[in-house]
């Protein structure tokens, strides 16, 4: 069970049980839907940007597995006050973290709180769970009104 605890670290289990920013935002500037058809994970992301192009508020609702719920919860905590460019950079690093080959070293210190997802890369089937919230966020930032799909 030790390997399992490497994937499901305490932070992930905690965010799964008590997701942060788990709420709809009335009058949000932007809203996007995310759907992972393979798992049935579904989330709605609400986003409000301020005049300087920074995230002033973000929330999400939906249902999903522990990985996708914790990922959405941690992500929403992290991006408050960030610009689109900063978020894109963050997403790039996160994407690399969960998709890099198992034997490739990663700089966990640089990842901050997102480092708890380092175990995901050992489970290729679960990468989509970890990235669903991020794809949905990018959809919301692009403001196309589309649905982010992982398939």
């Amino acid at each position, binding site marked *: 069970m030790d390997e*399992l605890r490497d994937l*499901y670290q305490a932070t992930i289990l905690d965010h799964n049980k008590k997701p942060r920013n788990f709420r709809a935002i009335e009058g949000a500037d932007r809203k996007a839907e995310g759907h992972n058809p393979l798992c*049935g994970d579904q989330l709605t992301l609400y986003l409000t940007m301020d005049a300087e192009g920074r995230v002033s508020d973000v929330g999400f609702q939906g249902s999903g*597995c522990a990985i996708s719920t914790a990922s959405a919860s941690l992500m929403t905590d992290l991006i408050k006050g960030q610009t689109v460019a900063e978020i894109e950079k963050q997403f790039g690093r996160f994407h690399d973290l969960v998709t890099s080959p198992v034997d490739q070293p990663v700089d966990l210190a640089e990842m901050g709180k997102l480092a708890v997802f380092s175990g995901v890369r050992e*489970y290729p089937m*679960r990468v989509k769970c970890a990235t669903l919230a991020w794809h949905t966020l990018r959809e919301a930032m692009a403001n196309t009104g589309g649905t982010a799909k992982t398939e």
Partner: protein
Amino acid sequence: MTTAYDVAAVREDFPILDTTVRGKPLVFLDTAASAQKPRAVIEAISEFYETHYANIHRGVYQLSADATQRYEGSRDTVQQFIGATDRREVVFVRNATEAINLVAHTWAEKNLQAGDEVLITALEHHANIVPWQMLGQRKGIRLRVAPVNERGEVVLEEFEKLLNDRTRLVAVAQVSNALGTILPLESMIELAHKRGARVLVDGAQAIPHMPVDVGQMDCDFYVFSGHKLLGPSGIGVLYGKLSLLEAMPPFLGGGDMIESVSFEKSTYAPPPARFEAGTPDIAGAVGLDAAIQYLQGVGIERVALWEHELLEYATAKLSEIDGLRIIGTAAEKSAVLSFVLEGVHAHDVGTALDQAGVAVRVGHHCAQPVMEIFGVPATVRASFALYNTRNEVDQLAAALRETLEIFR
């Protein structure tokens, strides 16, 4: 109840059962998705490629004649296995999905008119929903759905109410892949025939686990996939009553399905060749033949008994786990156990079980409407086969308890 079933000997026949997953011995409980292959099948295929392979129905040389004989011999084996009266009633296709699409594009395309109805059940696999929806869009045909009760059983009275003079086809699974429910086919077929409807039975989930006799069943079409029947993937079977097949237009056009071709006009071969355009999966047919013979060697009735024993044992074991809810509790069930763990998403369960070497399916099992009926996004599905043991059920139960510990 115990039987003199020698599961250890059966396991010896399946090389993959010796492998390890994440450092643990493999506990394979996903046969409902696809079955593992006995050595007899693996060897039949390689032996065929190594010593008998050539294209069929063409060459005048010995090797081609030999390959043709083996391909056609497989048809004889299937005919006898499913109780068809005529070998021409057995059409080789890729899988059950293709067989259903074939019927939708030929028989249904020709015989159904706008306003006609196709009746399915709420338990169907996507493969027995989508082809009829597509037909409906092409031709203005209405798809109707017989409901199930809270145990996941088809309610016969409701099914009967949905049958009417516009019902031209009843397309139903013999066994639900998502819940394991065995459908009351005898009554359903009788009711359908009384109203003049034809019946297509999706036997993909049934045929590896119980004796099937299409003659006795009196269905009009019966479809299944080789890969769930211990055979290779890429080969499947459409059974159709000969009079129906003979009156059906071809599906795909090409070589092997014609009688004669000119640029003005082609005439088509009789069944089954009419529906087997192009070079088929010849080695697949050889492998399917070996799979059926292997299963017959073990004895399908004995397999059914053993699997039923495993199902009862697993149902009892898993029912003891607090927070586990079994989805699908029909009185008549095949060896499929679908369930959810309270507060743990099915995908997390799947990953946790994988860590313990236990392979199960998690998700909607290509039966999203079934998930909706039971109000769950996904379930965990353990399915049992001739090579599974009580010990494996114990390992499943133990891994589930550990999973609950981590997530609670």
